[in-house]
């Protein structure tokens, strides 16, 4: 996917002006926040679960190489194959190789952010393999030629009327009189179209929420059941997962599952939690003939041991963006790449470079709400600040910003000069305001006054007044 993060500012402005998008976002944020809160409040041990989930991932990341190798051995032992992919291109080629070997014309796909990250759909289409998204949200945005705007709700930016319009446009056999005004009828229509695809598909591709080293199992959590059909009906099942998805044991996975859905949608558990271990064994009633796992690095191993290490604990629940005022204001597409919201603002610069994604860690008020709800206790604001430090070191911020900061810091580091300058400037500024006491515009303050007025300083500075007060006291004592 082409990186559009450098255009963040323009994209954000458009998003804010987009009334339809704003309506969709308004609904979404109320739902997610309230549901999570209810689920968390109902579980007194939730904070302990967070700490234990975090500890599991911390431990795994400390020994990532060992657990990945253990996982690989178990996958092979259960009859599957593991393909190590250092880059997105390696992963794409590995998928294509498997598809070619299987003579695949059509692949069905379960919802997977990793395949978004490697832009798999565009690639497969160019290579003559037709990918069919089977998650309702993913299916809708595939019809529209869009990308997900949320990591668990890909079509969060849309209203049901838009979806109806898309279905009527694409599903040409649809009788004009069919009611598609409700989410249920839309789901029914998607199901009707998708059902035969599962049987036509030669290959099913899913992501993974967990890879279990103990057993070589991949786990997906879904709400629609499409993931199960994707991975059991075609002859070949490909799991595309990034390396930090591994956990040591099934017990560890179930620990983390207790915080995942609660943080994401406010459910105790997702509707389906599906475990896959290798291909169909003799005597199994169903399952694929081949089971492949593509293990993607794509820059993650270079985050280990850096100040961005803790980002690798992320379980992609979306709670950070669900609670982010910036995400609520601009939606997911403004971020310009695969991962939006606070987790994207940390991860995207790690994966594509801060020179391209510099806006993202800057476009945060550091309100800290993301960190406070993150089930894995990832210090997202701190890591965004680290990205700002990398930018500053490399001189990537705009010259005006650097100049302004330097000018301010020069005085802030010299209290005497600072006192002198402010005791002249502030009374002058205060006088300039006249009786109105507000500035509607002011040179060099356009960023502020574009949308709000600036209150004038009361009069002289506190320090000036304080010095007078102390001097008066001294005189009183002496008299």
């Amino acid at each position, binding site marked *: 996917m082409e990186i559009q993060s450098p255009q963040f500012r323009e994209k954000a402005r458009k998003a804010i002006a987009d009334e339809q998008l704003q309506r969709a976002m308004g609904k979404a944020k109320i739902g997610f926040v309230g549901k999570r809160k209810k689920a968390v409040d109902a579980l007194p041990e939730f904070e302990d679960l967070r700490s234990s989930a975090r500890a599991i991932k911390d431990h795994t990341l400390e020994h990532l190489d060992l657990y990945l190798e253990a996982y690989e051995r178990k996958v092979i032992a259960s009859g599957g194959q593991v393909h190590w992919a250092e880059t997105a291109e390696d992963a794409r080629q590995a998928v294509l190789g498997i598809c070619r070997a299987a003579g695949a014309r059509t692949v069905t796909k379960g919802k997977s952010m990793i395949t978004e990250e490697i832009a798999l759909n565009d690639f497969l289409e160019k290579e003559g393999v037709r990918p069919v998204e089977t998650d309702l949200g993913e299916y809708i945005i595939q019809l529209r030629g869009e990308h997900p705007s949320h990591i668990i709700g890909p079509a969060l930016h849309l209203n049901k009327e838009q979806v109806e319009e898309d279905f009527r446009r694409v599903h040409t056999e649809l009788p004009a009189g069919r009611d598609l005004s409700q989410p249920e009828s839309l789901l029914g229509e998607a199901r009707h179209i998708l059902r035969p695809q599962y049987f036509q598909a030669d290959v099913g591709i899913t992501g993974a929420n967990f890879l279990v080293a103990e057993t070589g199992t991949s786990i997906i959590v879904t709400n629609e059941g499409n993931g199960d059909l994707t991975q059991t009906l075609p002859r070949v099942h490909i799991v595309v997962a990034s390396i930090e998805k591994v956990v040591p044991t099934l017990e560890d996975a179930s620990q983390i599952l207790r915080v995942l859905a609660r943080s994401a949608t406010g459910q105790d558990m997702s509707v389906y939690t599906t475990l896959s271990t290798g291909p169909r064994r003799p005597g199994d009633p169903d399952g694929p003939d081949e089971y492949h796992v593509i293990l993607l690095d794509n820059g993650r191993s270079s985050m280990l041991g850096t100040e961005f290490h803790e980002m690798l604990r992320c379980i992609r629940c979306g709670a950070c963006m669900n609670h982010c005022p910036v995400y609520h204001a601009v939606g997911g597409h403004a971020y310009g790449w695969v991962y939006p919201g606070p987790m994207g603002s940390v991860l995207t610069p790690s994966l594509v470079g801060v020179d391209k994604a510099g806006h993202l860690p800057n476009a945060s*008020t550091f309100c800290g709400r993301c960190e*406070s709800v993150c089930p894995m206790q990832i210090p997202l604001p701190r890591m965004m600040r680290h990205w700002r430090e990398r930018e500053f070191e490399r001189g990537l911020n705009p010259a005006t910003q650097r100049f302004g900061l330097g000018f301010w810091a020069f005085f802030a580091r010299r209290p005497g000069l600072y006192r002198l300058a402010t005791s002249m400037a502030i009374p002058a500024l205060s006088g300039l305001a006249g009786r109105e006491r507000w500035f509607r515009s002011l040179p060099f303050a356009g960023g502020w006054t574009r949308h709000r007025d600036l209150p004038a300083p009361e009069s002289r500075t506190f320090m000036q007044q*304080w*010095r007078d007060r102390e001097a008066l006291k001294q005189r009183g004592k002496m008299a």
Partner: protein
Amino acid sequence: MSERTGSAENFKPAKEEPLKEESTSPKRVGLFVTCLVDLFRPSVGFAAVKLLEEAGCTVEVPMAQTCCGQPAYNSGDREDAAAIARQTMEAFEEFDYVVAPSGSCAGMLKKHYPSLLKGTPFEARAEAFSGRVHELVSFLVDVLGVTGVPARHEGSVTYHDSCSGLRELGIEKQPRKLLSSVEGLELREMQNSDVCCGFGGTFCVKYPDISNKIVEEKTASIEKAGAATLLAGDLGCLMNMAGKLHRQGSSVEVRHVAEVLAGMTDKPAIGGGGR
């Protein structure tokens, strides 16, 4: 723990150290005025002094203070931020406590100086300094044990929880507790009082359109609460919300919570009052 008071490293609610010994001599407090109060609204500084003196502290104001350094720190400029941190610690070396009428600046001094100066010769000093730093209202309630104030304020107020105070320092109940003791005051809670107002320091000028979208949501909540006065504990947030309310033609007055607690509302509200 609820979403309102986070729990990860940087966002631990403040754990107050009890006074080491009950001494009868008054506590020496160094007031960290904060740059915005110094420049834009000295009333807040004098309200803080009054509250602290009423609670039995002696208050001094070191002249060698400027700003907490957050603009540099949050812009990735660690060198300037660290220099300002060292300068601030130096200026407040001699006090029993360092108190700021701002959760954001107090959070910077208390939570971020130690991580900023980690691995430098100033690390231990920053840790010790951190233990002495407090935001004004939480200092009154949690450290001095103040349970009420002798102030009077006729009318309804609504209170916005500024992010750093709420999530870095666990300031949520303390201001409400003291406000409930103010005679004549009615607290009307707004919806989503814990959601950011869109100020974010330099954020509001770097991304004015996004900031505006966020503050519009906030002023809508404020108006819906139907209170005559908006209060908060951070002047940055207050100036942002006041500036938006004024641009929108609102009649809501905006003040720092310390002004009401100190009974100093005879002065005009931020920007000289409503329309």
